C-alpha cells in the first residue's frame, strides 16, 4: 500500500527525481533524498515556518506538501535562492543586525521576507510583522529580524531611485 513512487521536480533550476513513499513530505524528500538540508523541519503542522520553500514561485510549507503532490512543480530552496544571489542583501542585513542566533528559523524567515518584498517592496513594520506571523524564532525576539527586512527594503528602494 505504501510502495514508492517516482517524483520528478525542478529543484533550484535542475531536474531532480526521487523515489518516495506517498507519505513522505516534500521537506523530508528535499532533506533526505536530495540532500538539501537548508530546509528545516520543525513542527510539521504548518505553525513554525522553518520548512518554507518556493513552489511554483509562491512560498509554502514543505512539511504540508507531500513530495508526490509536488511532482511536476518547480521548487526553490534557500540553497537555490542563496546561490543565485537573490537573498544576498537580505542575508547581509540579517548578519549586520544579528537577526539570528541558532539559525534554525533563518531559512524560513528568508523565504517569507523574499516573498514579502517581491509583493510589497516597501512594507511597514506592521506589515513585516504580519508576514512573519507564521515564522517562529525562539532566540531573537523578532525585533532584529523586522529591522533587517526593513533595512533591506529601504536599501533596495534607494538603489532603484533615480540619482
Amino acid at each position, binding site marked *: 500500500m505504501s510502495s514508492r513512487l517516482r517524483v520528478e521536480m525542478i529543484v533550484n533550476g535542475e531536474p531532480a527525481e526521487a523515489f518516495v513513499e506517498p507519505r513522505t*513530505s516534500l521537506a523530508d524528500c528535499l532533506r533526505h533524498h536530495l540532500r538539501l538540508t537548508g530546509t528545516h523541519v520543525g513542527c510539521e503542522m504548518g505553525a513554525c515556518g522553518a520548512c518554507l520553500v518556493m513552489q511554483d514561485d509562491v512560498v509554502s*510549507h514543505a512539511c504540508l506538501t507531500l513530495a508526490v503532490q509536488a511532482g511536476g512543480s518547480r521548487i526553490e530552496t534557500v540553497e537555490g535562492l542563496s546561490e543565485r544571489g537573490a537573498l544576498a542583501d537580505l542575508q547581509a542585513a540579517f548578519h549586520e543586525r544579528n537577526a539570528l542566533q541558532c539559525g534554525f528559523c533563518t531559512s524560513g524567515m528568508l523565504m517569507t521576507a523574499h516573498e514579502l518584498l517581491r509583493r510589497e517592496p516597501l512594507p511597514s513594520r506592521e506589515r513585516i510583522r504580519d508576514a512573519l506571523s507564521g515564522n517562529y524564532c525562539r532566540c531573537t525576539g523578532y525585533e532584529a529580524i523586522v529591522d533587517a527586512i526593513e533595512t533591506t527594503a529601504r536599501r533596495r528602494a534607494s538603489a532603484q531611485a533615480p540619482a
Partner: protein
Amino acid sequence: MKPSPFAYARAASVAEAVAAFRASGDARYLAGGQSLIPALNLRLQAPELLIDITHIAALRGIELRGDALRIGALTRHSEILASPLVAEAAPLLAAAAPWVAHPAIRNKGTLGGSLSLADPASEFPAVALALNARIELDDGERLRAVAADDFFRDLYETAAEPGEILTAVHVPAARPGQRFAFDELARRRGDFALAGIAIAGDFEGEIAARLRIAMFSVGPTPMRARGAEAALTGTRLADADIARAQAALGEDLPDIPGDAQTGAAARLHLARVLLKRQVARLRDAPEARPA
C-alpha cells in the same frame, strides 16, 4: 511526527475521484492539504488512500454567472485576496481572506477545503453563512446545491454525503444598498480567532431592512445570531438597538465553548464587543469597505 502510511492517487475528474473513493472505503480527498496534512502528521487521521483532486480543472476558476459569483472549490485563499472580481462582487469574502492563517498557508489552502472541513473557528464558513452562499456538491452523477444555512450541521459535520465533492461556492453578487462588516479577535495575528463576526446587510436608506449575522469560534458550527438579527432588523441601528442585539447574543450562542485560556463567559463578552463595533461601523461608515 510522520503520518501513517497511505496510498496516493491523482484524479483527473470528479467522477474518477468519486469512483476511487467508493472503491477504497477509507479514503480522504486531498486539496490544499493545509488542515488535512497536519491532521495526518499528528496521526489524528490515518486513511488508507489520499485522492488528490487538485488536478481537476472543473474545480477551478472564479466567474460571474448572472447575479452570483461562482468560485471554484480549488480557489486558493491568496487568489481570493488578489481577485478584483471577488473584491467587487463579494467584498465580505475579500475582507475575511487576510485573516485566514498565515501568508504561506493562504498560498495553498482552498475555499472548498475550508468549507468542507467546516472548522467552527474558520473565517470562510462564517462568511458563507452571512452571504447566504450556496454550496455546490457533486457525487459524480448528480450535482446539487445546499444553502449555507443547511450545510453546516455540527462540529466538522456538513451536509455533504460520504464521497460527495464540494465543487464550487455560489455567492450572491453584492448589490447597491448592501453593507458588509468583518472582524475577529485573536491572541496573535494568524491564530484561530477567540471570536469572529461576518455581517451582510440590505439597507433601505438608513434602515437595516435585512441582516445576516454569522459568528465563528462561538459554537460547534458557524452560528447565525438570529436574535441579534431580529433586534436590529427594521431599525436605524441606534445604540439602544445594538444593546438589545448584544443582550440577545446570550440565547443565540447557547453552546459557546470555553477552554483554560478563554472561558465561555469571556468569549461571549468578546462576541458582544465585536457585534457592537461592527454594527456601529455599518451604521456610521456605510461606504467603507469591510476591513
